[in-house]
């Protein structure tokens, strides 16, 4: 799925990265906890979150997350937008809630990067 398709599915507004909408997204993750994102997310994901500050972009940068979707119409703070532009991370804004946004993406074929196999592996490692 491309970022442009995500924009369509979530009826989203593009906040930054207008020129990067042809990027491919392979999986999705919904979380406000960046440490959870750092623990589980796979390559080329979309991050669905309510976190509107620069740390969401930093986390995206560390994890090669190509796109961040802000839910419930939340507004990115200026630090977030500046950093996202600088680091080429797409930021979208949707009016849908986290639950609904994730559901719509799932329905469109996207799956979680961590998955059950990973969750089992993580539990076993503890």
């Amino acid at each position, binding site marked *: 799925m491309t970022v442009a398709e995500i924009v369509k599915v979530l009826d989203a507004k593009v906040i930054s990265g207008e020129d990067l909408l042809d990027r491919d997204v392979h999986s999705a993750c919904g979380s406000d*906890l960046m*440490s959870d994102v750092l623990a589980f997310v796979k390559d080329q994901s979309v991050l669905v979150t309510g976190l509107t*500050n620069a*740390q969401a972009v930093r986390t995206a940068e*560390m994890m090669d997350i190509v796109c961040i979707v802000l839910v419930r119409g939340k507004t990115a703070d200026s*630090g977030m937008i500046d950093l996202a532009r600088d680091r080429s991370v797409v930021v979208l804004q949707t009016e849908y809630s986290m639950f609904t946004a994730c559901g719509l993406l799932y329905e469109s074929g996207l799956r979680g990067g961590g998955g059950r196999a990973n969750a089992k592996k993580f539990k076993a*490692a503890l």
Partner: protein
Amino acid sequence: MPKNLKLHYDISGEDYTRAGEASAQLKQVLRQLGLSSSIIRRVSIAMYEGEINMVIHANGGTIDVEIDSACVSLILKDTGPGISEIDLAMKEGYSTASESVRSMGFGAGMGLPNMRKHSDYMKIDSTPGVGTTVYMKIALGEE
């Protein structure tokens, strides 16, 4: 294969929005060295969580990175309040972070467990009132 490259980062504890900048810079260096994406990912996560910890708990510190043909070694040193119970701090979900830290998406008690998960070796030396030094190694051969 890279040969004994040493890097030093000073981490400011004053500006939360800059937390992660050093980790981002190191990630660029590792990319330029041509390391595998899996190794780059593990080093980035381990250092980023450490860098965040330094900023939110210890008012900054220093990170020294050494890359040789066998591994990437990270030494994160701060002069913060120290960790009185390391075993407790290593537990998932245990956190002493403030509300402002939680509003950044951190402080959920996953930082140290994530660092352990993504490194091949990790040791914490900490003295309450003196500071904390975290040593981590990520082997280049491991995928």
